[in-house]
């Protein structure tokens, strides 16, 4: 077992948040400020604020992550520096803000909020902390507006990816979303697809589950559907250079998915003549995963199997700080692994995907 202590590791999933939505006001017009104060942000949810399923801990975050100066977990750069970047030797951290902006039903409002959130990331976080980078959040249910948002920030070194949420209102590879992928490729940026969002459909394809436990487990299945759509619709065929990162979706399901998809594809090939490669070949070429939440099999060597079957070059460390199901980088590879593999996992793959 390696004892090499790695410093300057990459954390591919960090969630900063605003103290209040007022923090975005410097980048919002008077009209949108008033609109938000009166009408809030209209989402595909049953509550005005908060998530459809109540979380395990308030704000879905670690209880020990409240900043000393106040505010919700993840709202303080200073505290994030201490508790996350310094403590865990992180040299490259990617911000994936889940502040309400994407998936807001009023598309113009969604675009305005996304623009503000992108400014907020660049100017309050990345500008003040060289170890951090940002993700371009886009109003994905308006793909043309999303492409515009991507073009607006293209070339700005603060941003290392385009961010989508996994629960899109149509399967993620659907042609309506293609302007987003085209713009991302043109900008030379990977597309990160992070679990969550509200599609407007039940969170499973068999209706609404009763429990948060089911919602959390179910993110794996929902991301599977999105991935299948990307492959089968031909997004990777159309853009061979596109890199997609599945964030916070789990990854141990990926080998099974590839076996199943290849098998069904071989039988139903005539339906999808636009696909020139096997589905698994697209997945291996175009897709990466972040590690959190890491599964916990009884026998840790089964996890090693999954890393080997999927490939050590395909999985990147993520902490999901400050969420409650946070993974500690010191404990995350708890089975024998070579120095070379651990370096790929903690640094090398992120370098390849994001230019870390």
């Amino acid at each position, binding site marked *: 077992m390696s004892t090499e202590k790695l410093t300057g590791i990459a954390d591919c999933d960090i969630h900063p948040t605003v103290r209040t939505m007022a923090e975005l006001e410097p980048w919002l017009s008077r009209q949108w400020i008033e609109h938000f104060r009166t009408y809030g942000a209209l989402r595909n949810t049953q509550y005005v604020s908060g998530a459809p399923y109540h979380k395990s801990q308030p704000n879905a975050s670690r*209880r*020990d992550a409240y900043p000393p100066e106040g505010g919700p977990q993840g709202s303080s750069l200073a505290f994030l520096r201490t508790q996350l970047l310094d403590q865990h030797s992180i040299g490259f951290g990617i911000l994936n803000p889940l502040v309400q902006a994407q998936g807001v039903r009023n598309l113009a409002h969604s675009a305005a909020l996304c623009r503000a959130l992108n400014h907020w990331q660049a100017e309050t976080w990345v500008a003040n902390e060289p170890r951090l980078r940002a993700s371009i959040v886009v109003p994905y249910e308006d793909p043309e507006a999303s492409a515009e948002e991507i073009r607006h920030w293209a070339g700005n070194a603060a941003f290392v990816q385009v961010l989508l949420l996994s629960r899109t209102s149509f399967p993620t590879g659907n042609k309506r979303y293609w302007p987003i992928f085209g713009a991302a490729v043109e900008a030379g940026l990977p597309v990160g697809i992070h679990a969550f969002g509200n599609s407007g459909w039940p969170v499973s394809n068999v209706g609404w589950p009763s429990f948060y436990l089911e919602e959390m487990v179910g993110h794996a299945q929902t991301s599977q559907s999105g991935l299948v759509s990307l492959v089968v619709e031909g997004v990777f065929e159309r853009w061979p250079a596109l890199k997609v990162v599945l964030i916070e979706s789990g990854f141990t399901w990926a080998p099974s998915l590839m076996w199943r998809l290849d098998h069904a594809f071989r039988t139903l090939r005539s339906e999808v003549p636009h696909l020139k490669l096997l589905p698994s070949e697209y997945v291996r070429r175009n897709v990466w995963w972040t590690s959190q939440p890491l599964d916990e099999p*009884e026998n840790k060597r089964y996890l090693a199997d999954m890393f080997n079957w999927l490939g050590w070059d395909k999985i990147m460390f993520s902490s999901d700080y400050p969420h*409650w*199901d*946070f993974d500690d980088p010191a404990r995350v590879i708890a089975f024998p692994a070579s120095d070379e593999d651990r370096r790929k996992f903690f640094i090398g793959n992120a370098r390849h995907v994001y230019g870390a």
Partner: protein
Amino acid sequence: MARHVVAPAAEFPPGTRRLIDVDGRAIAVFNIAGEYFAMLNRCPHNGGSLVEGVLTGLLQSPTPGEYEYSRQGEIIRCPWHGWEFDVRTGRSFCSAVRARARQFPVHIEDGQTLVEGPYRAETLPVSVEDSYVVVEA
């Protein structure tokens, strides 16, 4: 094992808790309704800081839809992944049973649907001596 003073009992009232350091080991000490309990602060699951967790009661259920609530305030929930530990004994109520690597006997108590898991938070003896709260660590 040595005895370490935590605080004067008068300054450590019920419903409060403290984090002390003994030779580099972080120890969480709780006053629950006048009784003191101490445990190693590090959650055996992934190292979360137990002192920052919430004290809850124990929710059990003999059958779906029926709830039995007891031991109010005696269960510490790790602030990270929410694993539950009995403050008195350190035993977890994590039922992620490892068939091969069990550290402690796992059994189902009669009339309850509670399975004690193999993870244990290490508890430490606490006493009050001459009006001082003392932990053995």
